[in-house]
């Protein structure tokens, strides 16, 4: 009979051995008949509400491709890692994907910081990486030509928001409120101001807050004390904060339309904001609803069948499109050589994604895409417009 101590030691040894085995890539799935696509995502931690849907979308697309016979008879093996919203884990996973799993291409993440932690390691190895949702248009120039975005850059969505405000809402003056604690919200605010003032609009006041703040009284009272009232408010916010902001704004009697970026694209806007969310507009990647285009409707139903929940946000659709985009490039490359796959991704022209068609102009890593504007009326989302901005600020 073994005593408790020995039992624990043996158990730990077996677990450690199994863990190391899987860590070193001794997984039993045969590697010869599959094509590997690396998929590091922050499934747990601060970014899970965006990354988990994106990963689910990617898994759905891979399953559809495999059910239809794969690529040239080979099935796709999505090599998934949870990177825990931690830059150290992201760097370890990057070398694991390249060293142990030897993936020829990878996709992942919905935020710029994570891509910046992983990107240089992939760039050094010459392996292409496509991010479904990190919207900083500076990423390819910061890291290199192996980095691609499957979504539009923040400069494009900010320009679309500005154009929508001028054309549809007929507004000339704006009040700009931004969260100064993240790369995304500060860049978005900067691009918005550039494009709004480019032809005639005027930002008459600015104010800051920090993600996680629970009271916006100071910002609201400053806004209400202004002698010249703005026509519209542009609020550059993260998903967790926007519901609370609109609620406090409306309670304080601020009635102007509120406009923002794809950070609003979460169920939290209406569930927290309630009636206060009415007359809010935001730019995002696609209008995910049963009343949208047939392709999105099909995705909507398939996602619901696979995961028992409707797509949480547009990142689910972006994950779906990114997996499809990479599969398309592998097919065109006709090879599993990372350099050939990179060139095939760069040459992508009019890939019919459900979030819009994707083309990389002159092989640059940021695609040209149309921007979807969504509005809230009677606590329900509706398609307010599709915008292709005429002026786009430089990244």
């Amino acid at each position, binding site marked *: 009979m073994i005593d408790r101590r020995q039992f624990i030691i043996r158990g730990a040894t077996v677990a450690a051995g199994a*863990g190391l085995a*899987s860590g070193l890539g001794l997984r039993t799935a045969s590697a010869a008949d599959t094509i590997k696509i690396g998929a590091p995502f922050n499934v747990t931690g601060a970014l899970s509400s965006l990354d988990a849907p994106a990963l689910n979308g990617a898994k759905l697309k891979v399953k559809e491709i495999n059910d239809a016979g794969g690529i040239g008879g080979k099935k796709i093996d999505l090599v998934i*890692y949870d990177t825990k919203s931690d*830059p150290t884990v992201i760097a370890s996973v990057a*070398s694991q994907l390249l060293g142990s799993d030897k993936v020829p291409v990878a996709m992942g993440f919905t935020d710029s910081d994570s891509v*910046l*932690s992983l990107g240089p390691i992939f760039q050094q190895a010459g392996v292409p990486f496509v991010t479904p949702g990190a919207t900083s248009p500076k990423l390819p120039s910061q890291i290199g030509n192996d980095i691609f975005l499957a979504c539009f850059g923040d400069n494009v969505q900010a320009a679309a928001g500005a154009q929508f405000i001028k054309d549809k809402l007929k507004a000339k003056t704006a009040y700009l409120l931004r969260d*100064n604690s993240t790369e995304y919200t500060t860049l978005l605010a900067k691009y918005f101001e550039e494009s709004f003032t480019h032809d005639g609009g005027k930002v008459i006041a600015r104010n800051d807050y920090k993600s996680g703040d629970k009271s916006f009284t100071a910002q609201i009272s400053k806004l209400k004390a202004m002698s010249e009232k703005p026509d519209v408010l542009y609020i550059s916010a993260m998903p967790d904060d926007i519901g609370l902001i609109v609620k406090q704004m409306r309670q304080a009697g601020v009635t102007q339309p509120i406009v923002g970026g794809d950070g609003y694209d979460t169920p939290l806007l209406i569930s927290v904001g309630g009636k206060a969310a009415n007359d809010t507009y935001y730019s995002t990647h696609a209008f995910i609803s049963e009343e949208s285009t047939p392709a999105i409707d099909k995705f909507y139903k398939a996602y619901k069948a696979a995961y028992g929940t409707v797509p949480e946000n547009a990142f689910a659709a972006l994950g779906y499109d990114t997996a499809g985009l990479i599969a398309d490039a592998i097919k065109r490359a006709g090879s599993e050589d990372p350099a050939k796959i990179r060139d095939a991704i760069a040459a992508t022209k009019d890939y019919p994604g459900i979030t819009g068609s994707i083309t990389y102009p002159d092989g640059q890593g940021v695609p040209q895409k149309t921007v979807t504007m969504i509005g809230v009326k009677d606590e329900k989302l509706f398609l307010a417009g599709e915008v292709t901005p005429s002026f786009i600020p430089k990244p």
Partner: protein
Amino acid sequence: MSGPALSRPAGLIVFGAVLILVAAVTLALPHMVNNYLVRVVIVMCIDVILVASMGLGNGFTGVFSLGHVGFVAVGAYTSGILSLPVTMKHAFLPDLPHWLASFSLPFLPATIAAGLVCAALAAVVGAPLMRLSGYFVSVATLGFLIIVNVVLINASDFTRGARTFAGVPLQTTLPWAMGWMVVTLTVLARIAYSPFGRRFRVVREDPIAARAVGLSILPVRLSAFIVGAFFAGVGGSLYGHYLGAFSPASFYLPYTFALVSMLVIGGMGSISGAVLGVVLVTVTSEVLRNLERGLDLGVIHIPPLYGASQIVLGMMFILVMIFRPSGLMGDREVSPGLFLRRKPTGERE
């Protein structure tokens, strides 16, 4: 010294043998295992530097500081600003003062500068804070961490604010990390087990008795705090040059708690405890992280359970705290002398 005293030549031989072993591992490892495991070892070396230097203040002098990661952040940003190539400085930090923007330091001077800046900062911050004890010093140093975070976010001319500080050259290689770890552990051990280091434990065990024999508390605590901060800055520089891109959020509460748990698990009053804690927590979390992806062992198929590793790790911490409240090592040391000579009776306690 709590380990048995060795005669000087024997001690030097053992130290030399350890150095040769470390050098051999450093040179051989990249050829034996893949890049992923090398990276795990680099992270372990950096964490050993940070946890051991944290242990000097938190364990040996008993001043439980939660502000250590504040110094790590200052170290990472200081060395990052100093070593960023000049062209990148113009692109990323256009508002940097001219005298900072016009030059770029190599890795080693930038790292030492980071350590010195942190030591100077620790002298200023520690002078009032090291007068506190118990919970008060923990809360006050936590306040220091929060202040560092807020300053980093708002000093955007120097740090790009909350946005990612990118473009730092990826220079933390295995020899650098190992080398700094050996330097850190040697220096810390020499200090902690010198007559001067005995004062650390005296002020921890009985401040009143210490004062009665003419030992003033503040300089003792402050010196441990400053030395700890120097190596926190060095570790921060290594970490920054390992990641290449970081933001103020990288150096905040989650990292603080990771380091504190490594220290507490290993044993707070022990340098080898710090090493053990780091190795144990890192290896366990890496193993669990690979296990939670699901396993296919032919007969048994375990589906992926993301997040399970954090739960198991948390459970382990609880168990260690129940069965070994003073950590695995307590305040004992594994010293090379153990292999050469039996412990003389009556040496400790």
